[in-house]
């Protein structure tokens, strides 16, 4: 099974929303579509799903153009939308039947997922009586009710409290274990870093970077050094050419040019007899890579 997206483009008026976007997903897992707000993530997903026509390009699942008729995919939109006045179970069955299930199967699947996400007690309540987090769980159940092979989650973690976020993480892990193909769009780098093996960074419709996250990081090399020490190491670090990234309560992070710089700084600290509790040489975070490629979104 594979998802192949080739040369997708879309223009709204004068604005190029997505420009010649391509990527491939050849094994199960989570693919991260990253970008700031308005980068073109949602438009990309809608074009892949065939609910918005692309100006050019195509998206295929197992060599077949994707559409609601050819593939029962799952899609959780960024803007959550469920029927507020209708009972939870009633609308889940409705969505399930629209996905091609029979009523009994839809009901059984809904029951199972409600139980898994610990919201069974709300089955016969109108959605408007649920908290936002629980409404989001219902939205996720509506996405997964027909057990799709290909799943699109548009900003799935936004607005979730830590408890619900953990529960969603567990569900994601289970889906990956069950060999599902998941495309997740997000602008929360830590989330993507945690789940995605492959990523694509979008900036105003342009693909800025794509590939295997581990490989991308390794290409950047060891660029960061985290040191935890009771003594004031900043003057020594500056003398050795290290650039301060951030000073936190218990540790300090520096930018280094490579492993040699880290080794020579370690030697200086040992010679001085500074007691070290942490000395970690690491690759840049996805957030740093993103800023490097796109610029600071908050700037």
């Amino acid at each position: 099974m594979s998802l192949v997206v080739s040369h997708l483009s879309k223009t709204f008026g004068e604005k190029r929303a997505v420009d010649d976007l391509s990527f491939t997903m050849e094994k199960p897992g989570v693919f991260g579509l990253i970008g700031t707000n308005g980068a073109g993530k949602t438009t990309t997903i809608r074009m892949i799903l065939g609910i918005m026509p692309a100006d050019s390009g195509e998206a295929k699942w197992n060599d077949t153009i994707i559409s609601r008729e050819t593939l029962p995919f799952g899609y959780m939109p960024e803007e959550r939308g469920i029927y507020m006045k209708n009972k939870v179970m009633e609308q889940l069955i409705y969505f399930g039947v629209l996905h091609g299930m029979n009523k009994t199967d839809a009901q059984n699947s809904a029951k199972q997922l409600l139980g898994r996400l610990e919201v069974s007690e709300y089955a016969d309540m109108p959605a408007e009586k649920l908290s936002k987090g629980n409404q989001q769980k219902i939205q996720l159940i509506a996405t997964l009710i027909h057990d799709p092979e290909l799943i699109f989650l548009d900003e799935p973690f936004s607005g979730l409290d830590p408890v619900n976020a953990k529960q969603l993480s567990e569900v994601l892990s289970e889906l990956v274990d069950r060999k599902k193909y998941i495309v997740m769009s997000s602008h929360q780098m830590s989330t993507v870093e945690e789940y995605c093996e492959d990523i694509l960074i979008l900036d105003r419709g342009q693909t800025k970077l794509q590939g295997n996250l581990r490989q991308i990081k390794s290409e950047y090399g060891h660029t960061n050094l985290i040191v935890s020490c009771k003594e004031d190491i900043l003057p020594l670090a500056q003398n050795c050419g290290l650039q301060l990234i951030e000073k936190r309560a218990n540790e300090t992070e520096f930018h280094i040019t490579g492993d040699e710089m880290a080794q020579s700084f370690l030697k200086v600290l040992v010679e001085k007899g500074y007691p070290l509790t942490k000395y970690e040489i690491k690759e840049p975070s996805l957030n740093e890579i993103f800023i490097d490629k796109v610029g600071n979104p908050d700037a």
Partner: protein
Amino acid sequence: MKQIRTVFLFTLKDAARKKAFKISTAFMAILVLILCALPRLISSGETDTSSPAQSGTESEYVAPDTEQTALCYYIDADNLIPNGRLALTQAMPDTKFVASDAESLEGLKQKVADNADTSIIVVENGENAPNLTFITKDFRSGISSTTATEALSKAYIETTLQSQGIDGQTVEFARSTLPMQAEYAGPSDFSGYLIGILLTILVFFAIYYYGYGVAMSVATEKTSRVMETLIVCAKPRNILLGKVLAMGVLGLLQFVGVLLFGVICYQLLVPDNFTMMGMELSFAAFTPASAILVVLYFILGYSLYAVLNAVCGATVSKIEDLNSAMMPVMLVAIISFYISYISAIATPGGGLEKAAMYIPLTSPFIMPFKLLNGDVAAADIAISLVLLLAAIAVVCMISIKIYSASVLHYGKRLKIKDALKK
């Protein structure tokens, strides 16, 4: 088809549970009940005024035991119609006729000006016969001059003939009026006319009300972002058709339900010989064929406008914009309704009427009236239906395209030409 059926059942169930539907059904049922109960209430307050004319002198006559609510001063200074006051009392038993003289006329006029239930009849010498003058507060108040003139004329003829020695049988013959009944060579009758008007108005309100329901349902799904979830499960075409069908069936069920309730109320509450403006009401105009065609025009008319309204609902991003988005369609519906009403009811038989029968936007309003009044040729019905069906097909195709482009468009309202380009 499965998707259309699923959307249809969900929408139908959802809309039937809404308070607005329950309240509107109860409101219409109460209205029907009141309308059917009115004739009985009115007739129970009426007294039979068709007692046979009596002849005799004023002193012999005893007025029926009727509450006299109106007052009329009768001035016949020269006693030109000796039995005049008696004849008036017989013809209008609810009016008290008081004899007065010409000197009091100015004072009486002031009383009439102050009280709408008071009138004056002045009998004076004319060229060949007495001249009658009726004085009332205004043209809407006072006694019926037609009834009073008829009664006084008969009394005058009777007195004149008797004074010339004509026998009683001849006098009675001279007083008589010829029996008459109205018959119409055409198929149109009063009941068909009345029910036709009522049905035209009902069809308009049904199309307006249920069309609004469709637009609201679509707009609510879009603005609450349910459409984002829905659109990946079902084709926009299936969503649109399922919704339009559901609201249509719901409307038809409510419509037929209220009509059936109306028939039951009519049977139970309306008196057997109830007449309106002297004419009996009947449902003879409702032949099986006309009833089927009326329902068909309702369904097709509703479908045409509902699809247009659904598109209006799909173009808005905020629910408060819905009314302004629906305005063009509503204006078209209102203008079409008035064209139908004016051409068929107010000025029948013209070219405008023919055009209204064929134009798909107006035919659902005019055809029920024409069908119930029986003056429509089979060829006209066929042409009208074919044009209406063709219009629905074209409007559906365009609407589905606009709807598909609009449902995922948020922000500034999408222009129709932009939606068609998408």
